[in-house]
């Protein structure tokens, strides 16, 4: 199952919920304000790295660019665009942790 997270990890517990319920191996896609969770150098970086030990973490390029953090992505996070987002949804049932 693909888990969609669209809220900043500094403001909302959406990503924590997704991770609590996601089985090992289930991918997580960060978009909208959720992309801040994929930013290097933040207080959340250790947490996202821990999440990446159990899950592929994807981040939406369009939302990274809008926020000026396209060059600050934590190593190992996979950047995708909207067509890539569609492909992921094609491969997985999808839960939205708004």
């Amino acid at each position, binding site marked *: 199952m693909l888990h969609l997270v*669209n809220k900043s990890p500094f403001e909302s517990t959406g990503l924590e919920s997704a991770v609590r319920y996601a089985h090992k191996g289930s991918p997580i896609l960060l*978009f909208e304000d959720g992309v801040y969770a994929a930013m290097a150098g933040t207080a959340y970086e250790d947490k996202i790295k821990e999440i990446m030990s159990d899950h592929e973490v994807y981040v939406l390029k369009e*939302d990274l660019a809008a926020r000026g953090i396209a060059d600050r992505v934590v190593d190992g996070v996979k950047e995708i665009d*909207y067509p890539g987002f*569609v492909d992921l949804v094609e491969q997985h049932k999808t839960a939205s942790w*708004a």
Partner: protein
Amino acid sequence: MKFGILILEGPYQHESSDSAYHFTKAALEKGHEVLRVFFYQDGVINSTKLMEPQQDDRHIQRRWSELQEKYDLDYVVCVAAAKRRGINDDVIGPGFKIGGLGMLTEVAIEADRVVQFGA
């Protein structure tokens, strides 16, 4: 693949309606079928043709209407949610129609994937 799209938040206030639009467009461009876009909760406000954003900003209703026309899409605005928020047949833009919540259940039955956007 057959997609259904569910939108739960209003235009401009949240990025969700932008994300839903870009996702829907990308799915269509990849050749997927989008059975229905269902506008629920504040999502119903995406449909109002009375919106007049600034000249240099996107026009969210018009963008949806153009996509509908191009791909002959089925847009349903939930009647109960719409009535609460002042959306009715007189204010919805081209390509939108007002319909019952059952039409969301129909999508859940028929689509391979329903993707929801909001809050």
